């Protein structure tokens, strides 16, 4: 009797493994090395493939999908240029801790190292820009590797994982291996549960605070929506003020009176001064990024610092903390609440009252104020009006990178997590449109808006074609100031107003461009017509590009100049003369 032949090719195994990992959508672009996978995809209807127009966009789309759902985003690209084009997206996902599994094609194993057509050392190139990567050299290892990759991508601090798949591995046959439940990885077991003794110490510190502030970030989002509910519960139990990082917006309801707004370089005056003057700082799931801390030696100089993070390498990296707690944000919050309730600590109400009075004093500076006239639209005004019209709808926001991104963070309010997709760590122009596609794929009925600048949007403008193909009613809200606004702002503040290469010459007609791609194009330059334009945008169940011509010279304030401390903010254009930038600060980006 003939031994039974394994029935499944590597490509079929792969598709089966993806389905077992509960993947619904794959963002990709075909090519020679991945043809067997595309053939397998063709023969099934469980997995949906979204054809992007550039591999970078595939990764950003998967990021938008992942960030808005909490699931792992999946990318499929071919070897060589397919893989190298994905590198920016992978780095972006690494910096912002977004769970991604990226499948890359590779030349057949016998050709690896021969400089074959469309060969690149993908595992070598992506080693520093992934959480982990694999080169699958035999089909026997394929299903196990895929399951492990999903485990690594989603557990601990999430991140992108690349699986490099030589073509012969995809064509050879082997038996499928189902995932272990629960997965037992031989070496990677992140610490999720915090140490109880440290939680008790934290409660003691928190309860004894006279000038406390919570500072929470993307780690709370990654922990799942329950973590944000627990955060709100704990913050309400204490009655303390809270600020969010750019990545953490939505982890605490923006409309809550305990919320101080975003902190950092373009954060609010009250948030940054609270950080500077606080005596106990409670960091949950944020990483003391340089955009947050400003000048390190003067960062929150009077505080005892508690840092809860699932990644031990984030602790004591930039800022030395007094009480490091390794663990998942949600688990830590659960414990904090439990211990707080058990101990019923008495907080210093008198001191807290004085602290809130101080904070209210800073709030009354109204640091986000701007002057709207009847002539030109201020970008801040455009976003305030946008928010007015979308706030009662089920909506998701993505952004590109630059001034518009910071204004969006300041003027759009986020009441829950997973609603705000932005490129924080890497600052990738061109992120917003593909990310919005990914969000819209996951939330077909929701209103998905990419708040864009006219420079950023050009970086992945080709994705309008994807948007058209899948009839994704994504809205692209361009704040068009005809400059790379953030570059121009820095040139104004740091380089004597020499606007070297930051003016956007030869911009396309965005209305015609939209129409060329089968989308709706709208334009608005009068403040009086802005509301109607926004309403029209929302009302159309098709992709819309809105070209909002805004004040060309408006700068983004408040601002902590590079190398300055939190108590050294520029509140507006009139502030800058008094405080020249230090040489030291100019070196920083």
């Amino acid at each position, binding site marked *: 009797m003939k031994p039974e032949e394994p029935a499944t090719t590597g490509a079929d195994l792969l598709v089966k493994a993806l389905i077992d990992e509960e993947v619904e959508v794959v963002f990709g672009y075909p090519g020679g090395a991945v043809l067997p996978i595309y053939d397998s995809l063709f023969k099934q209807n469980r997995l949906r493939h979204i054809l992007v127009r550039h591999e970078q966009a595939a990764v950003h789309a998967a990021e938008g999908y992942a960030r808005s759902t909490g699931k792992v985003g999946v990318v499929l690209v071919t070897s060589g240029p397919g893989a190298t084009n994905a590198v920016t997206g992978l780095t972006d996902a690494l910096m912002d801790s977004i769970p991604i599994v990226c499948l890359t094609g590779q030349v057949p194993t016998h050709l690896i190292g021969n400089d074959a057509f469309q060969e690149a050392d993908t595992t070598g190139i992506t080693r520093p820009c992934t959480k982990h990567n694999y080169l699958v050299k035999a089909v026997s290892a394929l299903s196990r590797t895929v399951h492990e990759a999903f485990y690594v991508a989603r557990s601990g601090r999430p991140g992108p994982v690349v699986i490099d798949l030589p073509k012969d591995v995809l064509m050879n046959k082997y038996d499928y291996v189902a995932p272990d439940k629960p997965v037992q990885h031989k*070496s990677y077991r992140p610490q999720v549960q915090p140490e109880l003794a440290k939680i008790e110490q934290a409660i003691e510190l928190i309860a004894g605070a006279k000038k406390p502030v919570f500072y929470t970030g993307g780690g709370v989002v990654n922990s799942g929506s329950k973590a944000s509910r627990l955060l709100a519960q704990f913050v309400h139990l204490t009655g303390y003020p809270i600020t969010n990082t750019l990545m953490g917006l939505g982890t605490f309801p923006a409309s809550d009176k305990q919320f101080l707004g975003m902190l950092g370089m373009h954060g609010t005056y009250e948030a940054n001064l609270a950080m500077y003057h606080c005596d106990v700082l409670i960091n949950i799931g944020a990483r003391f990024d340089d955009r947050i801390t400003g000048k390190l030696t003067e960062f929150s100089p009077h505080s005892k610092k508690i840092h809860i993070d699932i990644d031990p390498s984030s602790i004591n990296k930039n800022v030395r903390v007094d009480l490091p707690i390794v663990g998942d944000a949600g688990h830590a919050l659960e414990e904090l609440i439990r211990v707080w309730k058990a101990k019923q600590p008495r907080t210093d109400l008198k001191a807290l009252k004085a602290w809130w009075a101080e904070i209210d004093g800073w709030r009354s500076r109204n640091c986000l104020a701007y002057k709207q006239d009847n002539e030109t639209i201020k970008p801040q005004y455009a976003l305030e009006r946008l928010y007015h019209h979308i706030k009662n709808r089920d909506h998701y926001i993505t952004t590109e990178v630059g001034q518009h991104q910071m204004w969006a963070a300041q003027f759009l309010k986020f009441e829950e997590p997973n609603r705000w997709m932005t490129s924080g760590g890497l600052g990738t122009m061109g992120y917003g449109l593909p990310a919005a596609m990914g969000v819209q794929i996951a939330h077909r009925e929701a209103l998905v808006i990419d708040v864009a600048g006219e420079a950023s949007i050009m970086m992945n403008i080709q994705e309008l074609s994807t948007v058209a193909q899948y009839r994704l009613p994504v809205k692209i809200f361009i704040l068009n100031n005809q400059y790379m606004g953030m570059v121009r702002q820095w040139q104004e503040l740091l380089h004597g107003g020499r606007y070297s290469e930051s003016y956007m010459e030869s911009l396309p007609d965005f209305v015609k461009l939209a129409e060329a791609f089968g989308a709706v194009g709208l334009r608005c330059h009068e403040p009086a017509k802005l509301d109607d334009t926004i309403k029209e945008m929302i009302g159309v169940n098709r992709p819309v590009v809105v070209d909002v011509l805004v004040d060309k010279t408006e700068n983004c304030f408040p601002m902590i100049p590079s190398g300055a401390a939190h108590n050294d903010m520029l509140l507006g254009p009139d502030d800058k003369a008094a405080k020249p930038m230090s040489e030291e600060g100019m070196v920083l980006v």
Partner: protein
Amino acid sequence: MSPSDLVSGHTISVLVDNEPGILARVVGLFSGRGYNIESLTVAETDAKENLSRITIVTKGTPMIIEQIKAQLDRLVPVHRVRDLTVEGPHIERELALVKVRGTGDKRVEALRLADVFRAKVIDAKTDSFVFEVTGNSDKVQTFVGLMEGLGLVDVGRTGIVAMSRGGEAL
């Protein structure tokens, strides 16, 4: 200078899966983050479990050393990271092969010093020796230094391997 600015040397042992690319991951981490590698040794130590042991000698402030350890520990194929310098007494050894060419008095003197350093002769021709010397890095360095005046032509060093004292495994 405060103690937190003091740069000191650390010997770190890392137990890793013996798989392609693991050394590149470790070395890439050091180069990518601007850490220093003074010595690096790696070889398979457990064929059954397919594990390798990497010994790294590095230097940095306490905060940097803490970062290095945390970053190493974060790599998926890394099983264990131990800082031998801070975790109790440990021993370090290095092996060097030292080739010396010469005749007459110098040749006799080289052989005599090799004896003092308990270096073994592992190859000999009428006008050359290859010595094998083991010990801590200081001893190896001293021996190599002495040979410089006696016709040293080639040195190969393994870098440091290290282990904690006592009965505990890594």
